[in-house]
């Protein structure tokens, strides 16, 4: 490759042990190295309970590794306190979860603007216009002022996707984002994610159980037995 894109997030020798203070500690990750570059669309696959969510949370600075280092958008998370991590997440990470977790008391637009409100108190005019444009782009133009309860599952997940993109992050982490949708809306949301990645140049990491969707990613990382390895086409 002639020009390597900038690294969005990188993990070195990541170990994660749960229940260290109990008599049955579980070592979920036993030394994982990953590097995600800007503009990449990466799928993470692996059996249930293999540690995919755990890895995603580490990459998004939502959790700290038991051992190893995370460099997220150039910042070593070990150097930051909890507030520092929160601010870093707010600026450079967007999360999409299987269950959209939109706030039921806020409209679709307000939900999408939430990361900006957390950061600035409220979203400015320019940001609001930009986010409106994004919602429009994913077909939610007529849903902006509806509450999540009045929207379909697919619509809610699209709103959650735009919320993840609202702060113009460098990295979007999606944990089984289509897992709770029927095949058609799942495909729709997936296609939108791919398009938005291409358009915004964000790095996109998606945990999925859907092999078909995984095949459409630029890269597939397989989490297994506490390790992560590149899932090359040859393996199939």
């Amino acid at each position, binding site marked *: 490759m002639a020009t390597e894109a900038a690294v969005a997030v990188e993990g070195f020798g990541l170990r994660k042990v749960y229940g260290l203070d109990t008599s049955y500690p579980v070592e979920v990750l036993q030394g994982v190295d990953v590097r995600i570059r800007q503009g990449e669309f990466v799928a993470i696959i692996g059996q249930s309970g293999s540690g995919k969510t755990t890895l995603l949370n580490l990459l998004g600075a*939502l959790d700290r590794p038991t051992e190893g280092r995370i460099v997220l958008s150039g910042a070593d998370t070990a150097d930051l306190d*909890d507030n520092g991590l929160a601010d870093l*997440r707010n600026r450079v990470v967007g999360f999409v979860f299987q269950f959209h*977790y939109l*706030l039921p*008391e806020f409209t679709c637009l307000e939900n999408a603007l939430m990361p900006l*409100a*957390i950061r600035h108190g*409220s979203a400015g005019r320019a940001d609001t216009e930009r986010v409106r444009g994004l919602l429009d782009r994913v077909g939610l133009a007529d849903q902006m002022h509806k509450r999540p309860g009045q929207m379909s599952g697919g619509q809610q997940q699209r709103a959650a996707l735009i*919320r993840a993109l609202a702060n113009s992050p460098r990295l979007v982490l999606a944990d089984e984002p289509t897992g709770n949708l029927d095949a058609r809306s799942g495909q729709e949301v997936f296609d939108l994610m791919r398009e938005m990645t291409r358009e915004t140049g964000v790095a996109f990491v998606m945990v999925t159980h859907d092999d078909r969707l995984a095949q459409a990613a630029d890269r597939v990382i397989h989490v297994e037995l506490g390790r992560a390895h590149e899932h090359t086409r040859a393996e199939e």
Partner: protein
Amino acid sequence: MRFEVAVATRHLVAGKGQTVLTVAAVAVAVTVIIFITSLIQGLQTRLVNDFIGSLPHVTVKPAERRPRPLAATGARVEGMAGTAVQETVQRRDSFDDVEKLTQQLAQFSGVTAVVPAIRGQAFLVHGARRFGVSVSGADPAKQERINALQDDMISGRWLSLGSDEIVIGFRLADEAGVRLGDRVRLLSSEGVDGVFTVAGIFDTGQNAADLGSVFTTLRTAQRLFRLQGAVSSVLLKLDDPFTANQVADAVSGSLRHKTESWMREQASFVNGLRAQSSSSAMISVFALLASAFSIAAVLIVSVIQKSKEIGILKSMGARDRQILLIFGMEGLGIALVGALAGCGAGYLFLRMLQGVRQVARFGRTDQLFPVSFDPAIFLGAAAAAVAATMVAAVLPARRAARMDPVEIIHGN
């Protein structure tokens, strides 16, 4: 801050039932406190007025002169000993420089009226009958500040009383068969005898006074009790009757006179008032506790219900402090709205209570419940409820702030 306010407000608006419940809990507590405190305060004010309305708050008397020991009198004859001591005891102690003393006493803080007066015993003689009476002599306009006798007059006059005129209670008038304008004889304990015109008859509602009290001018009393230019006591009225002990002590401390405080003279009455006040305080505290506990319970439930929202807010970069503020502000919102509603309800209740009337003396109607509308009670109740609610909100808010988003999200 705008973000936290927005989320807190939306939570409160969306959580209709819960919000109404918690606001009602605060409002009820505030209403109960305002109601009970205003009622007790009003009742006590009336009780105090009725009970000690006719009494001075502090009575200043000359320090007692010790009976001089026999040796000092120089009396040698054994048979004379008793007489010598008795004479000293019986000698009326009095204040001679009334003007100066009055000025001195007026300087004490809280003193609203200074009334030089004479109190003495006498017989009222009418025809062949005599009645033991206690004679109070003071300038009527001043005496009025101690006990508003003018309101109690059922016939005749009091304020424009001339010398050689007296007013007596209606029971005494009945007993003695005296009518307005009749002349009666008074024979004082000092042995002074005189004829006086009954210029007025009063009904205080208190048997003892209506049967045994005679009021007259200072001048007349001075003559009756051989106290030319002097008085036997000075009566004080205070702006707050419950400072009587302090004022009495201050006076006896700096002027070296003997003082009597109504609070000491009527100790059991004062203790009764105290017990009443502390039971109203206890009711208030329990109302606050009950409301605080119910608010804490509702808020804990709401925090648990919202744990997923809290998790997502944190994943989006909300700091612990922001979450704490959100739930803290929900508590504050509940507290402020509840306190306001409670003040409104308290006011309405008191107004209703004020409307309840009873028949009073002279056929007039009177409030059954004397209600005091004291802004301090409203403010105090509101402040106490806001404080209790905030304390109740702290625990749930901290719990929310400490939630671990990883655990919430893993709990998918």
